[in-house]
């Protein structure tokens, strides 16, 4: 009887491992790497930033996560309703690496996360100000499944508890039908703008102890040409 119980439990463990392995290797959940913005005829504003916490002006979370807040004495988001939220403020650079603006990003783990569908969703918004140009708001759902699968989990499997390599992927997964973010302009040359955007990450190193070590982000925002009219509302 005990032997049968052991066989059943062992079988269940194998079954769970097989299922999780199939989920992990599922080729249908591979993240798209080509941005829909790349095929647009309109102008595209590209804003880059370092997504490593210590390179930002501030990075704050619940204070118990793997990534330490920066600077160390920044107010932490420990209250229950904001415990699964991260806030950053960072300098955004243009394609030549020059400071182009300041961006504030709030990201919260999303209840629409569905591991069965390969969706590790984060709801995030950007509040961007570009001196002498104006301000923008970007609202998006991001899917970090590809990043988890190809960077974070391999770092845990590595005997050195780290990952090094080159990984690039679009993390924006909505709300636009083509997996684009919704963009609204607030002031200056962007006043009244309704458009779309895509955020991509480019990772080079990840540490189990410290989190992302060398990682860059890039926001691509489509700016409809004057006279062509704005994109339809998403």
């Amino acid at each position: 009887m005990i032997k049968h119980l052991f066989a059943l439990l062992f079988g269940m463990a194998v079954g769970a491992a097989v299922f999780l392995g199939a989920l992990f290797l599922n080729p249908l959940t591979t993240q798209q790497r080509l941005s829909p913005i790349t095929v647009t005829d309109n102008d595209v504003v590209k804003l880059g930033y370092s997504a490593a916490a210590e390179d930002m002006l501030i990075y704050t979370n619940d204070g118990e996560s793997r990534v330490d807040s920066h600077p160390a004495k920044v107010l932490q988001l420990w209250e229950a309703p904001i415990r699964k939220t991260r806030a950053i403020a960072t300098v955004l650079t243009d394609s030549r690496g020059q400071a182009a603006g300041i961006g504030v990003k709030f990201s919260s783990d999303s209840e629409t996360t569905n591991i069965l569908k390969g969706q590790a969703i984060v709801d995030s918004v950007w509040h961007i100000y570009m001196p002498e140009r104006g301000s923008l708001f970007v609202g998006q759902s991001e899917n970090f499944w590809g990043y988890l699968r190809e960077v974070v989990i391999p770092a845990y499997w590595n005997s050195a508890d780290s990952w090094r390599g080159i990984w690039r992927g679009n993390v924006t997964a909505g709300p636009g039908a083509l997996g684009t973010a919704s963009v609204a302009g607030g002031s200056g040359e962007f006043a009244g703008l309704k458009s779309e955007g895509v955020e991509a990450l480019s990772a080079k190193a990840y540490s189990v102890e410290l989190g992302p070590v060398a990682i860059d982000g890039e926001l691509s925002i489509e700016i409809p040409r004057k006279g062509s009219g704005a994109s339809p509302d998403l």
Partner: protein
Amino acid sequence: MLCGLSQIGSEEYDRNANLTKLSDMFKTFVAGIVLGVVATAAGLYYVPVVDQSREQSLVIVRPNQGNTETFYANVPMDRILIGAPSQQSPVPPGLQWPDNEGFANLRVELFKIRNAKDVVVGVASRIAANDEIPGDVIEWVLHLPARGSIYVSVQPEPQEGGHRVGTVQSGTREFDHMRGEISERWVADTAESDDASAGRIELITALAAQQAEL
């Protein structure tokens, strides 16, 4: 002779019995695999991976249409960041704000925001700038993790009574189709206790669902 045959028959019987036991155990193992697959799938389907903590929304329905909600940020306790040039005591301590000429007329602030019951329900950013091209700019983004976000442009000139009025430009999730106004007001704290705040920023939303275009 008969004794030998009987012994062979007994060994055969034992072997068959062992094979039957092994076969039963293998069946149990296979059943375990199926059960493991089903249990893992069910667990991932029914148990939420993310469960955001929610506070009851303290919404007041307006008599004409829409609703209002009040949010606060206690100053300085709820202030996460003051991003401005040449600060003697930066908030947070250790902040290195970029010494860039382009950011000279820019002030970025981040706050925790509270509901009418003084419970933290979200975070917010306030950007104020005075540049030649956009002119005077004051904007808020309110981010309520369990609900969504609101993007507001505020008129720089204060109204009678000292409050400023802003227009909702965009929103996400619960606020995706909500439009309306937000008033921003500074309320000084008149309490004389030692742990009293300097005051609070009061944000009152007046939102209504946008009519769908037919």
